[in-house]
């Protein structure tokens, strides 16, 4: 009996042996935690679909009453909302492309090569973590205006890439380290160039992890408020737009906006849940 074989069922059976009183306590605690996470999302959804009347109803019922899509469609019909949504998608899409295109090669270099300056590069990447990066958007305003990048989703995606790139580099490094070098060497022996070996052998194996990294980059950009608000005026992203109109817009519009912001997150986290811990375990080193 190998240790590995014994390990897998082990945890399961230990927990089954918990006395029932403690199990009850455990599940009660978990139920409270689950409610703690889910209830605010549920309530913002109620707010988003409850319409103008629902928001001011007093006292409120926690059950869905007279739901309607009216508030949501009205919100989406407001001038600028749709445009902001598109801008958010463009900025997030570009962030994904940039952070993978720039980060993955760096991650590959860190995983496969020993080179002078390696530690300096690692330090540069880690250094970004000690800084509140979004704040760096402040001085960029001037140079972005000069370069014509100000008030464009492209400009926003650049600063969002600064946020996502270190993460992408560290995660892809571990991803590539997890793919045995021998696979590549075998490909070389059988006549592949380095590039072909990467494309045909490494990439397919790394693809799921890269997809997870991409999704994280997307979420980072989609959610970012500060830099996006600083760097845009008319071509706002959704978060920047919502922040701008926050003070003057009625509550049900705010909830509709909040709901639209939350939905992709829920789906994305579901999509990458298998990678979450691997990715963060490494990225937090």
């Amino acid at each position, binding site marked *: 009996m190998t240790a590995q074989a014994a390990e897998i069922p082990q*945890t399961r059976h230990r927990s089954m042996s918990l006395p029932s009183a403690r199990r009850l306590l*455990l599940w009660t605690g*978990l139920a409270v*935690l*689950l409610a703690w*996470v*889910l*209830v*605010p999302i549920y*309530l*913002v959804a109620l707010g988003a679909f409850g319409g103008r009347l629902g*928001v001011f*109803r*007093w*006292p*409120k*019922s926690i059950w869905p009453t007279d739901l309607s899509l009216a508030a949501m469609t009205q919100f989406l019909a407001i001038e600028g909302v749709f445009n902001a949504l598109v801008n958010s998608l463009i900025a997030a899409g570009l962030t994904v492309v940039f952070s993978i295109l720039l980060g993955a*090669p760096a991650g590959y270099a860190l995983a*496969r*090569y*020993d*080179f002078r*300056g390696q530690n300096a590069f690692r330090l*540069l*990447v880690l250094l*970004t*973590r000690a*800084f*509140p990066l979004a*704040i*760096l958007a*402040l*001085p*960029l305003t001037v*140079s972005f205006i000069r370069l014509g990048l100000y008030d464009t989703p492209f400009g926003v995606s650049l*600063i969002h890439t600064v946020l996502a*790139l270190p993460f992408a580099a560290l995660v892809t490094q571990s991803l590539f380290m997890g793919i045995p070098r021998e696979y590549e060497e075998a490909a070389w022996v059988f006549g592949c160039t*380095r590039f072909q070996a990467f494309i045909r052998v490494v990439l397919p194996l790394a693809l799921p992890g890269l997809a997870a990294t991409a999704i994280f980059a997307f979420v980072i950009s989609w*959610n970012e*408020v*500060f830099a996006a*608000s*600083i760097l845009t005026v008319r071509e706002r992203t959704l*978060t920047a737009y919502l*922040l701008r109109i*926050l*003070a003057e817009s009625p*509550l049900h519009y*705010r909830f509709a906006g*909040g709901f639209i912001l*939350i939905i*992709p*997150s829920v789906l*994305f*986290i579901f999509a990458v849940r298998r990678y*979450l811990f691997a990715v*963060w*375990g490494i990225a*937090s*080193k």
Partner: protein
Amino acid sequence: MPARTSWIPYALIAPSVIFLGALFLVPLVQTIWLSFSVGDGFSMENYQRMAGDLNFSLAVRNTFLLTLVVVPLQVVLALAMATMVTKLDKGRDLVLWVLTIPLGISDLAAGLAWLALLQNTGYLNSALYALGLIQGPMGWLSQETPWALFFAIVLAELWRATAIVLVILIAGLQLIPKEFSEAAEIFGAKPWTRFTKITLPLLKPSLQSALILRTVLAFEVFAVVYALGGRNFPVLAGEAYVWQNDNQNYGAAAAYAVLIMAISLAATAVYLRILRTRPEQLP
């Protein structure tokens, strides 16, 4: 790793080095320069203006208060969550998914979700009314109720950003072989002793990363506060935003940015020192 060094790794890292140089290091220097200059000369005027502002001391106090309350609570909460989740067998994946949903939620959306709960005619007041504790809609998020507003922001921040601590800690727990805890159990350690003597010390590197990440982000806190309280609860990043966007005073905004960076770096240094793992104690 092969010993052979060639031009390939440099070509691979060059794009990201150039990119980070242009969009991280340059703006970093620019921010510092901008904060110390008025017109063309060196000046402390921006800092004087920042410090002289009515909201400045409030913003400093609020940001520190928020960080000092929120970050430790998040670590404790995340440790509790992680401990519970590791005891699970059935439904572990589902529970983890739900607990990590806030990881993907923007601070703005989080603020809005809690606004739905806490606004005047919101669900909290409805519940309190149903219990007969209040007579009608009440405001919690105004300037008149600073502590209620503070508490609301703490709740929203706990809700939103505990997930990242949880993920880092669970990832760290997975790296600790279960034999350590089992050996301690065999040799007589009770659950609490195992947690404090074995699990926590071995989790130190993960705790360190989680604390650095969360503290840096906590000093940047902005959108949650803005969504819940507008400018009723000034914080440093919020003031920077106002100076930049509303007052169009880039110098004062840069001074705020430098202040936030200085505090973040100092906090990081403190964590690195206090929670360092001596190399010989690494597993």
